[in-house]
């Protein structure tokens, strides 16, 4: 390009720095979300795969009551199985002196020789236990951190009724416990739940499991049919108290991690795609209008003999400068944000070698998309200007053609002041431009709606779960099913005002060719502490016989109310029965099936067994109750919905500021990008008109109102449009985030509507103030005396 044109470019870029910066920030936002979210997702997936490979993570698991070691060779000969391994894995109580409630641990055996064939662990601190030692133990890293335990410390556990002093020799992590949730809980509790690895010999002795195992897992051959293997294993292991074989996709820790990754993939693709399209759209809109205002200059350059290609390159440089700045800001910001994003995962998930990895192909493709969007926006405007013969382009533009719009033809317009007509006619003259600008702003409203909606949904879900559904103060879980005679003892515990039995019975539900292993929850017929809530919001009564199931389970099994299921119990005598579907509930956590306790007893052929209890407790006695329960050998866990809600609120409060900060920032960047640029361009397009008004004696405020009235109207149109867009996208998010563990309720609070509108209005008002200041500095004479 020619030196003088370079000079022009440099000067004008500086003159237009406000507009260029706002465009650059929109591009930066798009690039940043790509690099952060998609890059974060790719980093997570690669860390997960490395981890699984390094530890030889199994493909299929099975838990039994007790099976002889000699069975293992037979299992490994099942077609499709490449490798088989087994271990002992049992729950036991920990005696932690500084907390009142019982704490529990899962004890997992380590082989007598060498390392586990499958599901190995990764030592973080200390060393692997001595095979011969009977009191050496490894603890999981999160538990160690939460309890401030170090190698060399001791920990007391009650194993099979006997207190044992164990010597911590190190900390470890395992892909089976990336996200360590106590049984039956909805969230990890690193203070009160640990994973302890010990030599097999010691655990065999503790639980009388000499020459036996209660867990086996398998690596499959690449061509194996997982469901077939699962089915064969179930057949072979049923005589040994089989609790159901399950493939990797149902392994609890993997299920949560994979769910998180799936959500990440959905969000990491959808959100950057939305942002990048907005960025490209804005580039197109803003650069196009910007160049249209340079019509005269293009004509002059052409008159001097510049070629269209030279002029095109010159204006393309405007676009490229803005995008290059955006790519630089977005690239740096994205990498920093990506590291923070991965840092967040490091807090929740124990995955080794989880680092944010910069993906150059990703950055390059995001940059390329932005560049293309900018170039297309710039080029169409340049071509339009370049097509005009120079003489024509240099003449003052003929007055734009206007006519009375449809609104005025109704006669309504007669009552409007002339200034309002100017605003209306400008909009009616360029309806597409108005609509596009409104759509741009609507996206920023929509982004806020989706963001706030996630909090609304989660808060709704938590309140529903922990205040409406789980109405107990304390839920107790037993190690082994107990006779319901224990209820009398529970009633007598300090502070207990109500006690209800609960039974959780593993079962296989079969409907035609579809089947699913779950736990049936048996509730007392007159249960007041656990409510089932139908989609209407009303109580769903528990039928005397028959199952009430989660909507998702009904969908998975293809069943409706009135259908009959084959149920096979996976414990005790493994009874089979046929049960009718008595109701379907729209719940949001887990996949559940509820049944009248008496009917469940009949179905399983096990009379009056309970696996836990729900208690109402007067609040001043709760600590005493916890201390009492801590001494009870049969109690495995104690959970309180209040505590869950509280710890959830705390976590949420921390995250909410950061997320809201980003949302508001991103939405503002988009709103400002549209409104500020729209007003600046309108100012340059209609400067003469506005200056004339000032000359005629219109005050600054009145003129500003005219100019900004149009932007105000654009914002006004954008708000309901954005609400609609946000509501629709929120529905897509609900669908995308639907997992077995968790569904997001489609609930939007009133506040979300108002906040999303208010933030965008504030961003628009800020842009208006900036343009108003420019309008105030307007040189009336020079605008009027010079031609456009």
């Amino acid at each position, binding site marked *: 390009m020619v030196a003088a044109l370079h000079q022009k470019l440099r000067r004008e870029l500086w003159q237009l720095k406000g507009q260029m910066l706002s465009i650059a920030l929109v591009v930066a936002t798009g690039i940043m979300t790509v690099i952060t979210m998609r890059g974060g997702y790719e980093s997570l997936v690669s860390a997960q795969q490395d981890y699984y490979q390094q530890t030889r993570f199994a493909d299929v698991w099975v838990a039994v009551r007790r099976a002889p070691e000699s069975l293992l060779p037979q299992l490994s000969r099942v077609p499709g199985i490449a490798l088989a391994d087994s271990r002992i894995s049992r729950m036991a109580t920990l005696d932690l002196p500084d907390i009142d409630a019982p704490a529990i641990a899962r004890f997992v055996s380590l082989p007598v020789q060498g390392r586990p064939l499958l599901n190995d662990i990764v030592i973080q601190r200390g060393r692997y236990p001595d095979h011969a030692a009977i009191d050496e133990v490894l603890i999981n890293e999160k538990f160690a951190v939460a309890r401030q335990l170090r190698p060399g410390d001791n920990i007391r556990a009650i194993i099979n009724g006997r207190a044992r002093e164990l010597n911590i020799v190190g900390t470890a992590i395992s892909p089976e416990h990336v996200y360590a949730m106590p049984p039956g809980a909805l969230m990890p509790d690193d203070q009160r739940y640990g994973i302890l690895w010990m030599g097999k010999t010691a655990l065999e002795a503790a639980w009388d499991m000499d020459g036996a195992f209660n867990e086996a897992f398998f690596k499959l051959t690449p061509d194996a049919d997982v469901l077939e293997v699962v089915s064969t294993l179930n057949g072979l292991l049923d005589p040994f108290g089989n609790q159901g074989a399950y493939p990797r996709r149902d392994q609890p820790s993997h299920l949560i991690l994979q769910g998180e990754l799936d959500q990440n993939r959905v969000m990491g693709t959808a959100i950057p795609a939305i942002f990048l399209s907005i960025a490209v759209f804005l580039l197109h809109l803003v650069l196009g209008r910007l160049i249209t205002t340079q019509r005269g200059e293009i004509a002059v350059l052409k008159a001097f003999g510049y070629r269209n290609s030279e002029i095109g390159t010159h204006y393309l440089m405007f676009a490229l400068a803005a995008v290059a700045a955006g790519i630089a800001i977005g690239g740096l910001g994205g990498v920093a944000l990506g590291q923070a994003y991965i840092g967040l995962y490091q807090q929740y998930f124990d995955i080794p070698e989880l680092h944010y990895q910069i993906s150059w192909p990703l950055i390059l493709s995001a940059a390329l998309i932005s560049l293309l969007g900018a170039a297309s926006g710039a080029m169409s405007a340049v071509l339009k200007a370049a097509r005009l013969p120079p003489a024509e382009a240099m003449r*003052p533009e003929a007055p734009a053609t*206007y006519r*009375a719009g449809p609104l005025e033809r109704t006669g309504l317009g007669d009552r409007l002041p*002339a200034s309002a*007509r100017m605003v209306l006619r400008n909009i009616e003259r360029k309806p597409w431009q108005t609509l596009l600008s409104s759509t741009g702003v609507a996206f920023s409203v929509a982004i806020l709606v989706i963001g706030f909606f996630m909090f609304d949904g989660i808060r709704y879900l938590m309140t529903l779960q922990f205040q409406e559904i789980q109405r107990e103060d304390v839920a107790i879980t037993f190690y082994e099913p107990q006779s319901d005679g224990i209820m009398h003892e529970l009633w007598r515990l300090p502070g207990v005002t109500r006690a209800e039995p609960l039974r959780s019975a593993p079962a296989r539900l079969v409907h035609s060719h579809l089947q699913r292993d779950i736990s049936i929850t048996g509730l007392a017929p007159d249960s007041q502490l656990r409510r089932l809530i139908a989609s209407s919001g009303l109580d769903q009564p528990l039928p005397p016989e028959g199952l009430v199931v989660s909507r998702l389970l009904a969908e998975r099994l293809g069943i409706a109310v009135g259908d009959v299921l084959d149920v096979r119990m996976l414990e005790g005598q493994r009874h089979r029965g046929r049960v009718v579907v008595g109701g379907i509930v729209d719940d949001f956590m887990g996949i559940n099936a509820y049944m009248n306790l008496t009917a469940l007893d009949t179905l399983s052929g096990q009379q009056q067994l309970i696996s836990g209890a729900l208690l109402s407790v007067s609040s001043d006695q709760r600590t005493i109750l916890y201390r009492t329960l801590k001494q009870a050998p049969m109690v495995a866990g104690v959970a309180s919905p209040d505590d869950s809600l509280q710890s959830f609120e705390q976590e949420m409060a921390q995250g909410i500021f950061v997320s809201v900060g980003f949302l508001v920032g991103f939405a503002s960047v988009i709103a400002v990008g549209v409104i500020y640029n729209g007003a600046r361009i309108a100012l340059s397009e209609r400067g003469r008109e506005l200056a004339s008004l000032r000359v005629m*004696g*219109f005050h600054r405020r009145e003129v500003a109102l005219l100019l900004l009235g149009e932007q105000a109207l654009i914002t006004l149109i954008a708000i309901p449009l954005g609400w609609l867009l946000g509501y629709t996208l929120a529905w897509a998010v609900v669908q995308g985030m639907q997992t077995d563990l968790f569904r997001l309720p489609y609930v939007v609070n009133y506040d979300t509507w108002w906040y999303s509108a208010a933030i965008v209005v504030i961003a628009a008002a800020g842009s208006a103030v900036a343009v108003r200041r420019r309008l105030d500095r307007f040189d009336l004479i020079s605008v009027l005396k010079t031609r456009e």
Partner: protein
Amino acid sequence: MSAQPPDTVLRAEKLSKTYRMGEVSVHALRDVDLTLHRGELLVLLGASGSGKSTLLNILGGLDTASSGRLFYGDQELTGASDHALTNYRRLHIGFVFQFYNLVSSLTARENVALVTDIASNPMPPAEALALVGLSDRLHHFPSQLSGGEQQRVAIARAIAKRPDVLLCDEPTGALDAATGKRVLAVLDQVNQETGTTTAIITHNAAIGGMGDTIIRMSSGEITERISNRARGNVEQIEW
């Protein structure tokens, strides 16, 4: 404050204007004294760069002088705020420019209404447009009007608020001879019928014949003042 003869509308005392253009000072106006009387039609003649537009802009409150004083009736405008100058323009001054500066999204009538909406004692827009002979063009948009018609709408817009002073900067500059004469005839007629004090800037000496007073400017100074006892007919202007 000095006493004003009762028929004085605008009075300028030793107005000077210096622009700073980088390193150079440009004296656009040097010690100009000028009085505009009620009902007078003043023609300001001068080459481009003679300072006539600067003078008009200062008289109209679009610009401020570097030194000297300006009175509107008894009211001193020297050093007035932007707000005061806006009100001055709004209530007392009408402007007509070479480029008509109509609002393209408004019809002829609405362009006039734009001014009458904010004036204290305006004439109805239709009446103002009738004065300039555009009664049949009330609902036309600027894009549907010829250049001469657009300029006449601009004049109607300027006079509709019944200004005390009508300031016209090269009102025929963008028009051909026939249309230009038509526009000048309208200005002449408005001046005679409404008694609005009118100042017209032009570089076309022939137009001087239509004024009560003719002032020639050069290099920011008034070089000649002529009182024209017998105002010429616009039709006789040699273009």
